[in-house]
């Protein structure tokens, strides 16, 4: 049984419910368990390989570290911003780093609470991202979540246009550089040109799709239909059930 076989909409719903459940608690150990469980499930029950998992984990860890440092310094009630000004008569300047360190020690737990929650979310996000083929996800949104076909195929068309768009973006920037106009990623001239291209693309693409017989609001048949099966429900119940049980049992 592989995670890839699960219905994408069910998987998405499970992740979203779990995120909302986890948002009501600040248990470091529970967060770490969810994170570890997600990574272990990926390693043992999916085709995702370690290098791919690591590639997504690195930015997640960087973000978690940023949040950790923020919690360490600025937890409400014990923030280093709220420290009294150094008292020269008592211990002089040396008292300041001490007070900062004391505040950081007090804040360590909340720093961990914040950063491990982000890791738990990232774990589940990566679990979804690496086991859900994009096309299946969009098809499932159409079949289970009633996303109208024009939105589903519109999304797929836009996503598949992305490589050409990145190339075009680079080309437009180079074209400006050649003429001696410096063009950063936020240059208005480049953005304007790219928007003109995008709108032309959308018109051409719509015409192409319609001329091939795509009618937005007409009933249609599907080459592949995503379905919800018994094991999807088993997965959802097992995942959310064990999470609920841990929320009651785990105290840290």
């Amino acid at each position, binding site marked *: 049984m592989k995670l890839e076989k699960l219905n994408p909409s069910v998987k998405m719903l499970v992740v979203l419910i779990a995120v909302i459940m986890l948002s009501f608690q600040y248990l470091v150990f529970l967060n770490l368990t969810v994170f570890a469980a997600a990574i272990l499930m990926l390693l043992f029950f999916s085709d995702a390989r370690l290098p791919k998992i690591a590639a997504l984990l690195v930015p997640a860890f960087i973000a978690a570290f940023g949040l950790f440092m923020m*919690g360490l310094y600025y937890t409400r009630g014990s923030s280093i911003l709220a420290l009294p000004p150094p008292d020269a008569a008592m211990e002089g300047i040396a008292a300041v780093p001490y007070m900062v360190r004391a505040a950081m020690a007090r804040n360590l737990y909340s720093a961990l609470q*914040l950063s491990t929650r982000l890791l738990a979310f990232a774990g589940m996000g990566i679990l979804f991202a690496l086991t859900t083929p994009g096309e299946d996800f969009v098809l499932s*949104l159409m079949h289970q979540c009633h996303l109208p076909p024009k939105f589903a195929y519109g999304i797929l068309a*836009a996503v598949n246009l992305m490589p050409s*768009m990145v190339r075009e*973006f680079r080309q437009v920037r180079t074209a400006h550089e050649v003429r001696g106009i410096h063009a950063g990623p936020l240059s208005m001239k480049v953005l304007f040109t790219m928007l003109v291209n995008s709108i032309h693309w959308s018109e051409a693409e719509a015409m192409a799709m319609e001329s091939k017989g795509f009618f*937005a609001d007409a009933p249609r048949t599907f080459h592949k239909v995503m379905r919800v099966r018994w094991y999807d429900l088993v997965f959802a119940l097992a995942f959310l059930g064990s999470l609920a049980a841990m929320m009651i049992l785990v105290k840290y």
Partner: protein
Amino acid sequence: MKTQAYKLKDVLMIAIVAVLFGVVYLGCTYAGGVLYGLLTPAGMGSLGYEPFYGIYFMAGAFAVYVMRKPGSGVIAELLAAIIECLLGNYFGPIIILSGLVQGVGFELIIALKRYKKFDRATLIACAVCCSVLTLVYNLFISGYNKIAIGVLAIMLIVRIVSAILFDAIITPLLANALAKAGVLKGYAIAQDIPQDIED
């Protein structure tokens, strides 16, 4: 929300523009990363990406400003979020939740004004509303509730400035220029902007 009101061309325009702003945002993450590195020793690393936060709302802002239809901002942000999810973000489907908050946050004021007013003051109100709502979302989901009020205030101010710059100044500037050039003929914005006529 009537989906029949959107033609395939409209949907493709929203989706392609969402991808474009996604690419622009990626172009900025390098600068955000440098800022993150500089600010992390001071515990402010998470603030590094805030100056670019307004780019997140651009797809929604552009769509609702150009189409002026109920739901266009929310739909654009949702499509942008689904696309980001497909491209492999480490937050996966959680992005869709944030997309919904961003779309509702930006469109709320415009909806209250019944999709009739699109002047600078309205757009600034939208940008502020969106920044406040997304920070409330962060308070709950990201646990920012634990952070000192002073730091949250700095975060909110940077986010509001970024949202006003990108969504109340740059986005209408670009959209107006496009309308003037006659590129947006099929959309509601074209009725309000005089076009350059070339014969």
